[in-house]
């Protein structure tokens, strides 16, 4: 049992969770499948997966039926860039922090998980921060509110790592390394964009050497020679995985020049960047990004918050999309999950800025990020066989008037607006009770006057 504000709610939802193994049918809804058009019909959920979608479906007797007449259903929203639900974001002491991972410090009780759910987000890519040219390992979480850290992890997902270009990693003067008393403090390299490139190249040159060392050892071993294995290096291992195509790279970037730089470095070392993150000047090289087969995850219309974000335009996503780039919209939320709770309207803006269709707009927060994260065979659209991550809205999801009513992950309901509202007065009463109890205890334990009477 969790004891957060919404703790009691999880308990009520646990009751409905019992249905997960059974069958749930969402009926009479407007279903935005995203990949197969929009229809009026029903979705059958069995064993956490979507068993059937269509205008006429077979409803087994005894199924839990949710009448969604007048409501809209979309696939669970996937936020390709967040920093929620972790107790650390940056390991800022070094320029290559590939040995660390935010997965080690998932805060399963972080309220942002619940806030994200309430905004229809079912999967969040939780990234290491952008303090380092090569940052730490990321973790992909499903918003299974109430579960422990391990149970939040999107198990089928490929591992990934964060890179960062530009202002954040080049900020000079950051202290690094242990400062012994009286010793000179290290100032972190790099201090320029050139330096960022150098740090990345150098790291991969090291990773290649490290890879060779292991190969040489394996060769010796297979010949039956006695050899000491190389020391395992946790900083190098993820980079070798990148070289071998076993780990995705999500790279924080802004400017066209640095984006080209990274694409060339990746070419040099024969690996592919999975996504360019933020990529606010992506519209300037949409063709190059498309040709490189690299995804782009950006903001709808958020810019000028720092110098390297001055050249952004709200048509960025649409232009890249039209030039053939796989584009998603993200929140970059850390504490509060403010933007994360309204990614549907961020998608809605794409109709205004660039005239995208409803499906194209929705794709940017569902199937496109799923493809970028290589989880599109599991989630991202309403299709038979996919995990039943679904959001029921009261109105069209691209409207600013729409509200999330129910959210399902793997067929289990994790959010219910009605129940949340019902629960609030009870939580308030509970809090009041605790406050009063504490006052009482304080009074009882207050020290008596120490003066002799």
């Amino acid at each position, binding site marked *: 049992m969790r*004891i*957060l*504000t919404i703790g009691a709610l999880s308990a009520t939802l646990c009751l409905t969770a019992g249905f997960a193994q059974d069958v749930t049918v969402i009926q009479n809804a407007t279903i935005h499948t995203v990949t197969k058009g929009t229809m009026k019909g029903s979705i059958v959920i069995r064993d956490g997966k979507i068993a059937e979608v269509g205008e006429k479906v077979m409803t087994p007797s005894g199924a839990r039926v949710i009448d969604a007449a007048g409501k809209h259903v979309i696939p669970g929203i996937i936020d390709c860039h967040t920093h929620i639900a*972790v*107790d*650390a*974001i*940056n*390991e*800022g*002491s*070094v320029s290559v*922090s590939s*040995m*660390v*991972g*935010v997965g*080690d*410090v998932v*805060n*399963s*009780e972080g309220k942002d998980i619940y806030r994200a759910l309430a905004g229809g987000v079912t999967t969040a890519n939780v990234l290491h921060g952008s303090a380092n040219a090569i940052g*730490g390992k990321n973790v992909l979480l499903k918003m299974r509110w109430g579960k*422990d*850290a*391990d149970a939040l992890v999107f198990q089928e997902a490929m591992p990934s790592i964060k890179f960062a270009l530009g202002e954040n990693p080049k900020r000079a003067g950051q*202290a*690094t*390394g*242990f*400062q*012994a*008393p*009286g*010793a*000179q*403090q*290290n100032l972190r390299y790099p201090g320029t964009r050139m330096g960022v490139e150098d740090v990345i190249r150098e790291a991969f040159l090291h990773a290649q050497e490290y890879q060779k060392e292991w190969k040489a050892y394996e060769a010796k071993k297979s010949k039956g020679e*006695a050899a*000491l*294995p190389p*020391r*395992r*290096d*946790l*900083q190098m291992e993820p980079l070798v995985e990148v070289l071998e195509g076993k780990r995705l790279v999500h790279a924080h970037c802004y400017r066209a020049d640095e984006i080209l730089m990274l694409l060339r470095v990746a070419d040099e070392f024969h690996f592919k960047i999975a996504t360019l993150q933020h990529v606010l000047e992506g519209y300037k090289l949409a063709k190059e990004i498309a040709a490189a087969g690299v995804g782009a995850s950006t903001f709808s219309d958020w810019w000028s918050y720092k110098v390297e974000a001055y050249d952004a335009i709200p048509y960025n996503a649409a232009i890249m999309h039209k030039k053939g780039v796989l584009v998603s919209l993200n929140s970059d939320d850390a504490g509060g999950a403010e933007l994360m709770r309204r990614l549907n309207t961020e998608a809605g803006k794409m109709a205004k800025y660039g005239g995208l269709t409803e499906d194209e707009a929705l794709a940017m927060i569902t199937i496109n990020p799923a493809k970028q994260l290589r989880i599109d065979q599991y989630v991202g659209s309403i299709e038979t066989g996919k995990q039943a991550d679904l959001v029921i809205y009261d109105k069209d999801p691209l409207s600013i008037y729409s509200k999330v009513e129910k959210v399902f992950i793997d067929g289990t309901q994790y959010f219910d607006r009605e129940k949340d509202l019902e629960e609030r007065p009870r*939580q308030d009463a*509970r*809090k009041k009770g*605790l*406050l009063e*109890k*504490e006052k009482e205890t*304080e009074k009882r334990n207050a*020290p*008596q006057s*120490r*003066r002799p009477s």
Partner: protein
Amino acid sequence: MLLKSLSLFLLAGAAFLPLQAEPPSLIAIQDARIITVSGAVLEKGTVVLRDGIIADVGAAIIIPKGAWVVDGKGLTVYPGLIDGFSTWGIPDGAPVAAPTGGRAAVAVPAPAGTPAPARSQGPADRPGTNSWVTAADLVKTSDRRLDAARGAGFTSAATFPRPGLVGGHGALVNLAGENAGRMVVEPGIGLLLSMGGGGYTGYPSSLMGMFSYYRQLWIDAEHYKLNKEMYAQSPATIERPGYDRALEGVLAAKKVFLPAAGPMQLERALKLAAELKATPVIYGAVEGYRMAAVLKKTATPVILNVKWPVKDREADPERIDSIRTLELRDKAPESPAALVAAGVKFAVSSDGIDNPKDVIKALKRSIDLGLKKEDALRALTLSAAEIHGVGARLGSIDKGKIANLVVTNGDLFDDKTKVQMVFIDGVKYLPPPETPPAPRGGAAPSAPGNETQEEVEH
């Protein structure tokens, strides 16, 4: 160092060596109420201490000839209390090795004028790893806090060197002894890992960094071990490993002590311990009431911090804490009872508590909320001994155990009860004299943490 090793050798036979001329070597506490912890309470019994060992205990004991007798009428005898996670015995400012690294680092500060030490080049330098430091080398009989600790009924403590990320090896020590070496009951009870602080700014600077730091440290230790083994087999072909005191220290760890405030940190700590293939003991556990089930399931012992969280007195009075914080403050004192109910083995710690008597007061609060006195006492004695691997020698009043006792004039958890004397290795110590209350005396009490002001009121 040689001297210290010598005193450790002496220690092995310490209990059987004749004690100093002055303290009697044969003592009987007669007709006292005896709480053995391991067995039934003796309403009127006698306990005999010989050469620092409990020679006999029971209701009908014939007092041996030549014994010095303590009239136990109106007195209660308990096993000496054990602080499960402490720094007692290690005087503040004890010279710990400068956390400059595991390889060829110099522990002694360089004299003025010498060049600054080499910069840390990152993880490989292992800043903050003091795994070669052992509490047994650091304890001193002169630690000023020992008086106050004995005055509260404590006779032993699991004490740990704290600075750095890997603080060092803890030791189970008695809180008095002829010399530092004789204080040590068990020198290597496990390696202390912290998850924060340490007071430096380099890598690791984040919580997640600490996880990868520990992982790499253990990987390096395993590699070092393999290298040594292979070198021993074929010194002609395998490169000779460089001696590394930090890795030696890691390999010597019998257990690791990991902090966990609540269930989330517990999940992380248990995963880390499994990765390191180390036996974990959890310390802290301020949210113990939420951790009991997992601790039981994984058979993980815990050392509970009993400094119950309270409302910050300096906080903005308009500020209303979150329901989570309120619940924590409300529930934390119920943790001991929750751990008992779940069958989790736990001890308690003085960590963060200045006055040792406040450890008992904190447990009294839990007793008022439903914790059984026997269970509170067991946590303070036998459970602590068992967790630290000295259950056969300490923690209960049984024949053959080390003669560590606390004698009170009533129930230990009663506010009015006073500790009359403690025995450590069979030697009697009196509680420090009570200093007069500050308003009258004007001067601050000289003994640190002396708890007289509260008691004067009664």
